[in-house]
């Protein structure tokens, strides 16, 4: 066991800024609290989107879960609902996320592993069997095939006799960050964004209570971006969805209130708080001044946060509990509306039940015992926090300007701008850790060879894959062939005509078309994408 004799404080933030030992009023320049902050719940919302924040209502503790077959997850959903939870959060398996059926050759070994497998309307029906879709709110973490999963959901609701305007929930539906970071894209960027606009347009008319896009910085940060890049790329993506929806002819105030955001909360405590405060301020100004939104609800940035999985270490895994706790507190001091805390064992495997429970308990301790909930935005007016908020805001605006100068997000994707910057930042971070400039306890500081291990791991069985394959075979043998073929023809035709494909997807879902078949049909019109420039 080696322990360093003294602890040097970190001298810089992730993007190379050297910090002063202390900050005073002179560092704030012409800071005017009434303009820069406003009151909580008022423009520009730096202090939070709601006036009373956690003093009247805690953040939502939304732990993301799901694996195995639709029955496995359905059982879990019913358990959660019986225990007083009102919101369901669905994790799909990789084949579903990529729009492929469970019997696809590339799905080998991945069916039901990291989420639930849903390949057809029948799977979706099983997933929500016995659950009244009129009374729950369902979050679905799905992107490239988001429109198809939404079509399944609408079709199941219709079978239950629930009108679509009663449906509540969230689709992640953020394809742009897939091109930058998470890599679950299928179609080229242009048609992909049009598909997102299709869902926005459809939901605005038929599912007014549905949150259409969760614009996500989380994956961008996890892939290696620094805080300013996470902020800028995410907001630029949000602006792209707004612009493309306006170009479709939608009224900004009709759809903007249903956009939400999803950020990562990393280790640098005050920088993360500053990032979340700056996000709200930039969005409020952008929506009002750039897009001309009149409705205050269009100006509000509502966010979900998750602690940073990438900061968890395999060495001394118990330390991860402490990291998660600090990050969770940063998320709360930054004013998040909902929070997922990671489990300490996520660098080892999918979370075990015990680790998942401890992650939830971490939030409960924060909410019940620390009293950080007793006043809104307690850090407002801190020289340091306000300076950081100003600085990260300025950096983000500079990056957004750079993206605009390239012609927008789609053009920047085409040039490999996002991927290159993220990979370079990730490489710089790794070099800094290897050189010992960035210290990670248990990795390059306070290394303790004996303290690893000792954590129980969740194991998953292989059965789901075989069962799903058999079910798909049965579905393909028993569905009405003519209706199935006609529905896919219509989907192809609508895609070719540039019509909104949602009605055709809902019909294809009812006709027994699988996720893979609908994706292939759209691919024949939209083309597929190989990821753009890599280096």
């Amino acid at each position, binding site marked *: 066991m080696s322990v360093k004799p003294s602890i040097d404080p970190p001298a810089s933030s992730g993007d190379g800024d050297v910090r002063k030992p202390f900050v005073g009023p002179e560092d704030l320049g012409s800071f005017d609290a009434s303009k820069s902050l406003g009151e909580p719940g008022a423009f520009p919302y730096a202090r939070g989107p709601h006036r009373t924040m956690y003093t009247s209502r805690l953040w939502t503790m939304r732990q993301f879960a799901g694996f195995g077959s639709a029955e496995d997850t359905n059982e879990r959903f019913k358990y959660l609902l019986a225990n007083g939870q009102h919101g369901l959060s669905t994790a799909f398996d*990789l*084949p579903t*996320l*990529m729009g*492929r059926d469970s019997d696809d*050759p*590339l*799905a*080998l*070994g*991945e069916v039901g*592993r*990291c989420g639930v497998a849903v390949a057809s309307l029948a799977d979706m029906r099983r997933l929500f069997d016995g659950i009244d879709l009129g009374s729950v709110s369902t979050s679905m973490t799905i992107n490239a095939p988001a429109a198809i999963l939404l079509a399944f959901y609408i079709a199941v609701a219709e079978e239950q006799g629930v009108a679509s305007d009663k449906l509540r929930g969230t689709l992640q539906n953020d394809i742009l960050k*897939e091109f930058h970071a*998470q*890599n*679950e894209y299928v179609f*080229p960027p242009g048609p992909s964004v049009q598909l997102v606009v299709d869902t926005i347009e459809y939901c605005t008319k038929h599912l007014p209570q549905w949150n259409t896009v969760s614009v996500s910085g989380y994956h961008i940060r*996890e*892939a*290696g971006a620094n805080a300013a890049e996470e902020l800028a790329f995410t907001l630029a993506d949000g602006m792209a969805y707004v612009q493309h929806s306006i170009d479709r002819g939608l009224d900004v105030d009709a759809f903007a209130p249903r956009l939400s955001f999803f950020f990562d909360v990393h280790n640098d405590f005050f920088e993360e708080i500053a990032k979340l405060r700056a996000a709200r301020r930039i969005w409020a100004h952008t929506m009002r001044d750039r897009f001309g939104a009149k409705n205050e609800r269009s100006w509000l940035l509502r966010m979900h946060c998750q602690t940073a999985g*990438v900061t968890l*270490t*395999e*060495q001394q895994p118990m330390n991860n509990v402490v990291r998660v706790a600090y990050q969770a507190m940063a998320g709360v001091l930054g004013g998040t509306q909902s929070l997922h805390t990671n489990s300490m064992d996520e*660098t*080892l*495997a*999918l979370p075990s039940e015990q680790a998942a429970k401890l992650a939830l308990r971490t939030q409960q301790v924060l909410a019940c015992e620390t009293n950080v909930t007793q006043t809104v935005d307690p850090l407002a007016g801190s020289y340091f926090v306000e300076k950081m908020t100003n600085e990260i805001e300025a950096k983000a605006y500079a990056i957004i300007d750079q993206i605009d100068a390239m012609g927008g997000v789609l053009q920047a994707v*085409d*040039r*490999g701008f996002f991927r290159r910057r993220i*990979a370079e930042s*990730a*490489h710089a971070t*790794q*070099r800094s850790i*290897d050189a010992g400039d960035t210290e990670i306890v248990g*990795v*390059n500081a306070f290394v303790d060879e004996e303290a690893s*291990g000792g954590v129980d*791991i969740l194991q*998953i069985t*292989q059965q789901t894959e075989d069962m799903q394959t058999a079910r798909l075979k049965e579905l393909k043998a028993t569905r009405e062939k003519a209706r199935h073929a006609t529905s896919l023809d219509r989907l192809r035709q609508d895609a070719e005509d540039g019509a909104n494909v949602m009605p055709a997807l809902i019909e294809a879902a009812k006709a027994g078309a699988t996720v893979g078949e609908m994706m292939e049909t759209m691919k024949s019109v939209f*083309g*597929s*994408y*190989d*990821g753009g*420039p*890599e*280096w």
Partner: protein
Amino acid sequence: MVTAAPEKSNKQEPSGAPNASRILLAKIGLDGHDRGVKVLARSFRDAGIEVIYTGLWQTCEATMFAALQEDVDVIGVSLLSAAHMTVMPELLRLREELGLTHVPLVLGGIVPKADYPKLIDMGIAAVFNPGSSVDNIITTISELTKKRRLIVATDDVVQRFADGDARALAQVITAIQCDAPIEGWSPPKGSANVVGITGAPGVGKSSFIGKLGATLRSRGRRVAVVAIDPSSPITGGALLGDRLRMMRGTPDDAFFIRSLSTAGTSGGLAPHCADVVRAMSGFGFDDILVETVGAGQADVLVAKLVDRTLLLLMPESGDSIQFSKAGIMEIADGFVLNKCDLPGADATEAQLRGALSDDRTVWKVSAVRDLGIDAVADWVAAS
């Protein structure tokens, strides 16, 4: 990190081995977590290693085929999908089937500790996890590559080449690259159409070559590709990423891709590129496509090596028009306007035709949408 006990190497170190060792980095299945693999790719480059990254969504079979064609020293697989106990045995089976058992296979990703001994027992040379330091990984990889160096002369490569074994061609190319030709042997004379493909970075050369190659293959033609990327002038390492835009679908013995680095030379070509092309032609390919680094003026060198040259451009690309002024306009035999679905395609086409004083062909294509490729394939195939 866990490594297998070192095997006793029965291979001798050839003289004139290439300075840079080669590693194939692959992600298999649908898992898109590529932060780790990309950080490693850059770190390997900085350590003087040539990295062939095959990108996302590869099958086990395509990965092993790539390892064979690239004649790499180590195969590194990144898996964060929990599929390692399904995928790794399948890779080992294919490695044996393709005669590559001498190439060490290493795994990085989220792997429960309990699986480590099982993986090492089945034949995985090393397992790395998110806590492994990059320095340790590089040291392990360097030791593994030292153990595995090609032996051409003692490995009946001449006979296998004559028998049409793609692994023999891959080894011959390595020998040519190392400046260590097989004594008393040269490849038979071939009759391939050799076409150079050049153009500024970002015009989509690799995607276009992937589609063009697939189209030629669908007509039963045997296709080889030489994909050239620059090496780092400081470390000699390189990131060779073009392959990932070319290989899709089922691997195919008659679609042979070899990634080469410029190995410190200027001119947009790899050393001994002409000999590599000659070997491919002698092996029996019908069409050979040579992709340059697209660095500008120096790329005119490709014209000396090939029968015909295509210049790739894209709409509203001031860069590529600028690039085209640098001498390449004169030597190109045809012009391919890629990404023709983007706005401004017609204007760029008009501008291009205006700049040409003869009737050299201009094709409008979209590699991403698979449009217009057939006409270019007709031209390539017509020798």
